[in-house]
């Protein structure tokens, strides 16, 4: 019996798809900010499927709604309309308790503005989410030190954010996002303030998390190196997703990406 290669290929692709289920699905998400009479439509029907273990980069001009999208898919805000599913669960259906669990364990956030707690040391900032997860203080301390060493802040663990450079603060924020070994990392411009070398190290770190631990990474960035390493790139403009592409489809040399 002759083997139909075309059919076989289709069969294999299907298996591949099953291996990478959709971890985050945003459906027609709209977000309207109201300030008095004024309305700002930050998201206008954004739909995106993010697969488990992929590295998705998000690009878009300033004010296009990247941070808002992160907030919506990370359970930090409520969409005005539309739905967000994480692991097939509509997060609007979760109660405050489950939402807290989700924010604590499932998702690691790297905020654009770091949002480190200024009065706490690096280590305390990193161990805070572990405390929220109920981890023992000793274990949390050990893990926190290990993570900080990994991001190259091993010699700064007892410094407060105010005593760190912008890049060091960013790395502390990255370390905090890794605290509870999340399945998903939402990174809002994680390399914006880093020099090329440190930036590369962070990209390397994120790629390793993805490769070795299967962590899903969603990152807003304009960093070429990051874009090249990602699996897919998504463009957002005026709150709408306007384009989705694989890095190989893009000619980075001609500034196709802005």
């Amino acid at each position, binding site marked *: 019996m002759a083997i139909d290669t075309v059919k076989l290929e289709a069969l294999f692709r299907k298996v591949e798809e099953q291996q990478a289920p959709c971890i985050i699905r945003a459906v027609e998400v709209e977000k309207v900010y109201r300030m008095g009479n004024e309305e700002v439509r930050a998201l206008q029907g954004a739909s995106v499927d993010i697969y488990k273990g992929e590295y998705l980069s998000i690009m878009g001009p300033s004010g296009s709604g990247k941070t808002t999208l992160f*907030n919506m898919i990370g359970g930090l805000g*409520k969409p005005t309309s539309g739905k967000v599913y994480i*692991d097939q669960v509509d997060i609007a259906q979760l109660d405050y*308790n*489950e939402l807290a669990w989700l924010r604590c364990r499932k998702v690691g956030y790297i905020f654009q503005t770091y*949002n480190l*707690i200024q*009065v706490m040391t690096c280590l305390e900032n990193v161990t805070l989410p572990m405390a929220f997860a109920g981890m023992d203080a000793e274990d949390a301390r050990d893990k926190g030190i290990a993570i900080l060493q990994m991001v190259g802040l091993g010699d700064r663990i007892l410094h407060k954010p105010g005593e760190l450079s912008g890049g060091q603060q960013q790395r502390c924020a990255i370390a905090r996002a890794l605290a509870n070994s999340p399945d998903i990392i939402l990174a809002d411009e994680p390399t914006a303030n880093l020099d090329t070398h440190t930036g590369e190290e962070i990209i390397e770190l994120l790629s390793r998390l993805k490769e070795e631990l299967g962590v899903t990474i969603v990152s807003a960035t304009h960093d070429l190196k990051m874009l090249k390493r990602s699996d897919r790139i998504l463009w957002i403009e005026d709150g709408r997703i306007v384009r989705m592409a694989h890095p190989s489809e893009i000619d980075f040399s001609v500034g196709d990406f802005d």
Partner: protein
Amino acid sequence: MEAIREQVRLPFSVAFEVVMQGIRIRFGRSLVTATGVVLGVAFLMSILSGQVIRQGVSHEAQLRTETKRMFSFLTAEMGPPKDQVIGVLQVGPLNEAEVRLIRTLKERGAKAINWAQLTGQGAAPPEVARLVTGTSVEEVAAEASSLLIMGQGSLPQLDWATLLASSAQATVGATQKQEVAEVAPGVPLVSLARELKPEEIEAQALEQKRSAFRNLWMTIISLVVTFICISNSLLMSVTERFKEIGTMKCLGALSSFVRRLFLIESSLIGLVGAVAGALVGLVFAIIGYGLTFGFPLVLSSLQWGAIAFYFVPCLAAGVGLSVMAALYPASFAARMVPGTALRTNI
């Protein structure tokens, strides 16, 4: 893949640990917040204890006048008490002025003060026990240059002749009004008690009413000041941490945990501030009134019981207002959508 579960509820000890760490880290800021509580409570306490001090002082002053008057009435009859024997026949409970009179007589050099209780044996009341020599009714007036009938009670028929036999020309004095009417005829009796005229009583009642109203008014005003002082400093300290609350929520803190943090922190700060404030307020009141009326008078008339009693509302106000002022904005911030709380800049 792990299914979504419920977030763990952290035990109280973790919250307490986080709070203590927070207070240690921002010790200076916590101190500033506590200072607000100290000021608020100090104001309240100084007003309240000021009322106690004023009452005590006026009571003391009245007592002193009363004693002085009885003393001078008595000495006008019997001469200076130096080296004299004085008899005291107690017919009922003594009032403060009578005790003072006994003390004054002793201080002015009376040789002995014989004391007897009409109603039976019994020991002298503790406040005069040190000053008097207990005897029987028959001997109380022996060699005495005066016999004082003291205490609130009625005076039964006595054999005055025998009683006063050994003490020629003794002055018989009564320090309270009701006794005088019942004394046997033929015994010369000096009334040391003073009878208030109706208009005096009326004036006193009016003055009392006025001062009660003034005290109430002052208390209300000071409560308002305390409220503003405490809520202002606590509100400030919480609202400047909205962003921090937002961050904690984003990292998976439960609202109940955030509320608990601020509950513990504000009650600790409230308690420390209130205790310090109450002490500061008391010291200020004592200094203030001491400078006005003289420290000896103020300190000797201080009613510690009443002042200790006023510590209770001061602590309650300090802790209660602190918790209220902190918990309201904290739970407001905790209920906010975390993404929004992150952006707030107050």
